């Protein structure tokens, strides 16, 4: 296991290095000029040139790359070309929204999808098994912004129970307000995410229900519930865990639509704005961080899968030892 961890850590560092260099090159190759975001109709060509010089975007790319590497070595992500604020603290501020939003939505989605998936599998052929399957099918077809707008209309505008959007200026210093403003976005993402998750859990559960070992357990006298809890859940989890990892990773940045609907200052909306303005340090910072996050989630999922399924563990140690 230790050798496996070391190997994965080295792989993670290498992937990060390669992806940041690729990103740096891509951003400079794409057309666009960060100075444009700072200028308006009254600006003269001389002012545009001065702005580029001030930002350092008039330097040869090789020189820019050197400067970027030097900063990175000091763990400095640089400053935004547009706001002049340090990228690291800008990202940290956005993580206050993005991390709780992603994690809570993910947990809620799992809480919805696992029981529903099993229930649909257990009750196949009955009317409410079919109904649940239909509802999850419907959830797949509905766009996330529509769910968000529907929830806002009902819970914020009609019932006035929850805010329609925004995040408190006090941030998490006002925990109740911060949490209530995340509630509708969390439910929105969780509902949509759980629709696809339910289908995966459902098919994994069906495999388990039809398996020989479960029939054997029941033949030996174990009630269905006990047999499922003892043998079924763990076996059904193995194929679902990698799916969970992909869902979690895509929510991390994919929440941008929900962030816009609910006016949340998250990482996704920050990235979209930075792209529109060609704010290279911000794009580079956010994408490097999310690459690291996605790779880490994948790594955790792989490890979890090995812990769940000893067969994977045995083959891996066998080849690496």
């Amino acid at each position, binding site marked *: 296991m230790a050798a496996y961890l070391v190997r994965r850590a080295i792989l993670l560092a290498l992937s990060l290095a390669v992806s940041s260099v690729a990103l740096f090159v891509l951003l400079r190759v794409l*057309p*666009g*000029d960060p100075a*444009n*975001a*700072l*200028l*308006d*109709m*009254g*600006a*003269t*060509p*001389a*002012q*545009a040139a*001065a*702005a580029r*010089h*001030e930002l350092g975007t008039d330097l040869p790319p090789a020189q820019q790359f050197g400067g970027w590497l030097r900063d990175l070595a000091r763990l400095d992500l640089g400053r935004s070309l*547009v*706001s*002049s*604020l340090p990228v690291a*603290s*800008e990202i*940290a*501020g*956005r993580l*206050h929204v993005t991390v709780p939003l992603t994690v809570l939505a993910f947990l809620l989605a799992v809480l919805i999808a696992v029981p529903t998936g099993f229930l649909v599998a257990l009750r196949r052929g009955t009317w409410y098994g079919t109904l649940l399957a239909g509802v999850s099918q419907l959830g797949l077809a509905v766009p996330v912004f529509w769910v968000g*707008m529907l929830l*806002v209309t009902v819970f*914020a*505008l009609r019932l*006035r129970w929850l*805010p*329609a*959007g*925004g*995040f408190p*200026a*006090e*941030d*998490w*210093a*006002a925990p109740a307000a911060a949490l209530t403003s995340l509630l509708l976005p969390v439910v929105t993402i969780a509902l949509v995410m759980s629709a696809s998750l339910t289908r995966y859990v459902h098919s994994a559960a069906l495999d388990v229900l039809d398996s020989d070992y479960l029939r054997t357990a029941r033949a030996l006298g174990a009630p269905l519930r006990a047999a499922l809890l003892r043998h079924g859940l763990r076996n059904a989890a193995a194929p679902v865990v990698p799916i969970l990892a992909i869902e979690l990773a895509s929510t991390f940045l994919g929440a941008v639509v929900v962030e*816009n*609907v*609910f*006016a*949340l*200052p*998250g990482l996704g*909306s*920050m990235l979209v*704005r930075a792209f*529109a*303005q*060609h704010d290279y340090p911000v794009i580079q910072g956010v994408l490097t961080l999310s690459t690291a996050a996605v790779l880490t989630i994948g790594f955790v999922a792989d490890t979890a899968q090995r812990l769940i399924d000893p067969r994977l563990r045995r083959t891996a140690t066998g080849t690496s030892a």
Partner: protein
Amino acid sequence: MSVVMLSVAACVSSPGGGASASCALSVGSLYEPQNLDNAGGGGQGAAEALAGNVYEALFRLTEAGAVEKSLASEYTVSPDGLTYTFALRQGVRFHSGTPMTSADVRHSLRRILAGTSTSSRKNSLDMIKSVDAPDDHTVVVRLSSRSISLIYNLSQVWIVNHTLADPKTAEDGTGPYRLASWKRGATLTMERFGGYWGASPKCGQVTFRYYTEAAALNNALLSGAVDVVTSVQSPDALAPFSDTSAFRITEGTSTTKLLLAFNCRRAPFDKPLVRRAVSAAIDDAKLLRSIWGDRGMVIGSMVPPADPWYEDLSGKNAYDVEAAKRMLAEAGYPGGFPMTLDTPQYDPHPTIAEFVKSELAKVGITVTINIISADEWYSRIFQHHDFAATLQEHVNDRDIRYYGDPGFYWGYDNPEVSDLIRRSESAKTTREQTELLRRANHEIVEDAASDWLYLNPQIVVASARVTGYAANAVQAQFPVYGIDKR
């Protein structure tokens, strides 16, 4: 973690708040500042939130567009019009506590004129030769040529404490509010400044809340999360606010003009006759109705009613398909011609492009719509003049002067117009200035230098509990110090 700490400190309310310290106003907007500096790329959002509220200038523009003394208490002009001596208001303090002196004014002006300044005012203040501070409360500005707009332009030069290291990331102004916190992407909070020299503002705390979607902004107003929305960008957004007991809709004057701009350097748009034909082939009134309903207006030139030299010229090059066909034939294009229309991707440009395409088809001009990003527009069209025709919103006030600059992106080069505009700036009286600019405007319209499709309306929607906000958009600023909330 440090971010949390900062915002905790920031939400402690200001000491010395008056009777309505509890009044907390919430303003909704689509324009978040890019940074805090109007001379460093802060953009429309910085002007909207900070001008007059956090930063003040030597002069201030009233809602009606008149210029008033603000941080300048008096000024004199030498007989040749080349030396301005400003006496500064005494007892004015910056939010950091230090008194405002002539050194700060000198610094603030030099900042705009510096080589690295991205200020759009740099060009209009280019005639400033020197700025001196003979004593703490006097500033002397010397010009290389007369500038009748100097005082007007100075109303846009924020007076910044000369010790402030980076005005992009922090503020130190003299306004009635000081910046308490800026949570990027969400809120900008300001609170009443106890040491303000003028009348204390009504609300103790004002929060600008920023939205990227108009629908989210509307929901915020409907649910009471914001009290007022600075400018509504589409008439569809107004429907939910028809309940007059809960909401008020005001329509004021705006300076945002929607242009079909021609590249006057290139055939076929180097011919005034072709430009006039295109202008006559497009029914501006019908276009305005389809975009804005019964709001906004067709003005027929670059000059909106807010500028002193405004005249209704909508009758010139008026909609007349037959006349357009005749002019095209006379110009040597009896069957029309193909053209590419570069169209910014954001609303309402793509809709307008479709309308223009169908109108011009009637006179044989085949339009290819090319949708581009704001960045491409600025690089390719504005800076490199590589286009045939384009759609663009021009938001600035008094921007007829761009037609006097043959190097501007549309390349309109009429020496007579350039001369009139140059002379208007060195005019001795505003009457003379107005007269010269009116003549210039007639020339520009006669040449159909651009097709001025319509003037946007300026629409503010507010909760009925809120009073005292400005209906007119004066240089994009949104003064909050006069707003009260029941």
